[in-house]
């Protein structure tokens, strides 16, 4: 079982001439097994920084992060970004294979499977420039799932899409996740989206502290139109009202 442990994690940016900006302040949490966790919070509260630190793209200032893999050996991570970030000069299938360590037929057919799950099997030989933004983002999602990661990191993957495309992709994401049962850490500023997708929501507040850790216990598959999803969304939003006031009162350094 994949376990992500974050212990007393802090991150400060050096702004030069002895000025520092604290983005994450002594954060600790643990994510175990087949869980979908969302990290929510207003802009500038360190959500994306946290994700970058977990993925290893950014260094942290103090604290510990560990990730144990499902199968033993080094843990694998998949990443879905805000933009698709596909290589424009490689076909969809070549993009899927670029992030794979081995190029065996088994891996190729697995990549095809995930491409099929996002409904793009017939576009495997297209170049990204021939696909719409939503289709490109679906390739990005399939690419991340296809590496069979122990931990899948998603950084506001639907924020650049129109509402209807985003809604379709959220449903698709739930279906793929239900089949693959990966550990997912999903960053979003959209509480409504987080309630629809997650088992658990970690709310960050400005200054990089954990404001609240909410468990969402609703049956799946969930749809945006479900009544109990809507009720819980309203409830969570109400609980975070105070946070809104705080983010206005305490602008991020």
């Amino acid at each position, binding site marked *: 079982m994949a376990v992500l442990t974050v212990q007393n994690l802090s991150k400060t940016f050096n702004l030069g001439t002895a000025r520092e900006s604290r983005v994450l302040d002594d954060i600790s949490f643990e994510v175990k097994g087949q869980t979908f966790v969302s990290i929510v919070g207003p802009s500038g509260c360190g959500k994306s920084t946290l994700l970058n630190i977990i993925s290893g793209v950014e260094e942290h200032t103090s604290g510990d992060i560990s990730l144990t893999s499902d199968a033993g050996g080094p843990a694998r*991570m998949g990443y879905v970004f805000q933009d698709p970030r596909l290589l424009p000069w*490689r076909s969809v299938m070549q993009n899927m294979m670029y992030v794979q360590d081995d190029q065996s037929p088994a891996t190729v057919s697995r990549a095809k499977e995930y491409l099929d799950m996002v409904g793009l099997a017939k576009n495997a030989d297209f170049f990204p420039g021939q696909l719409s933004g939503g289709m490109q983002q679906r390739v990005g999602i399939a690419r991340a799932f296809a590496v069979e990661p122990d931990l899948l990191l998603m950084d506001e993957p639907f924020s650049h899409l129109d509402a209807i495309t985003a809604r379709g992709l959220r449903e698709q994401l739930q279906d793929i996740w239900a089949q693959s049962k990966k550990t997912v850490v999903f960053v979003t500023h959209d509480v409504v989206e987080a309630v629809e997708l997650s088992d658990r929501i970690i709310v960050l507040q400005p200054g990089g502290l954990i404001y609240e850790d909410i468990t969402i216990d609703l049956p799946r598959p969930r749809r945006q139109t479900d009544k109990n999803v809507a009720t819980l969304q309203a409830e969570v939003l109400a609980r975070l009202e105070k946070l809104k006031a705080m983010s206005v009162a305490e602008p991020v350094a």
Partner: protein
Amino acid sequence: MTDQMVVGAAPAAPTGPADDREADARRTARFRRWRRNALLALGWVAIYLVWEFGSWWFGSRLLPRPHEVFASAVEIVESGNFVTDFSASVLKTFAGFGVAAAVGAPIGYLMGRYNYWRAFFHDGVTIAGTIPAIVYAVMSLIVFGLSNFGPILAVALVSAPYVALNVAEGIRGVDRQLITMSEAFGRTPAQIRRQVLIPTIVPFVFAAIRMCFAVAWKVEALTEVFGGRNGVGFQIRTEYQLYDISAVLAWTVLFIAFMLVIERLVLAKAEARLLSWRPEERGAAL
């Protein structure tokens, strides 16, 4: 065409008025193509007429008539000199290009990647790019005398600054987000170089090659005129000394024709093929 590919679906069955519009658009496109080709042909006719007029005005001893030059060109091709001298010139040009790429590309890489190296190389490369080609031709001959190395060095010196500047521009244009993506998925620096950096530079390198090509040929021939022992420039000088003007022009015409073939058929096609992922190139490549 691109729009249909984006949707990935067959176009809807045409209705009456839309069908008319489409037919109209096709007719307009056909007419435009026809008009363009007609003007192209007219341009060639104009060149021919100006030439004929010039021959009549100056006398065909000074400026041989087109058919005389053509006959002379046929003679050169039949004699076999064409193949040996052209291959000599082509090989020297490509060798020069090779040297330019070997020197210019790494310099361009350093200039694009690191600001310190940019500071170090920038002015030198700019100066090297501004020096007139004839200076390179003369200097190369002084260094190497009558040998094949003179033209090669001249071509290399003329081309290297272009290659360096274009590669530097290409590297600076690399999409940082693709690099972070690669790092997040644990790709090695070698993989990132091959899959992200090099494909980014390719269009810039092609621009450099095509730009150099036009200049390099002329420099190569010029260097041969001064001090070659074979090649097109050497032949032009020989014919000039024999005062065989129609042969001088015949070599020139063959030279131009050959250059156009390489430019249009080889370089342009290769570029379209390599860059077929770009929407604007796709039409040309497929």
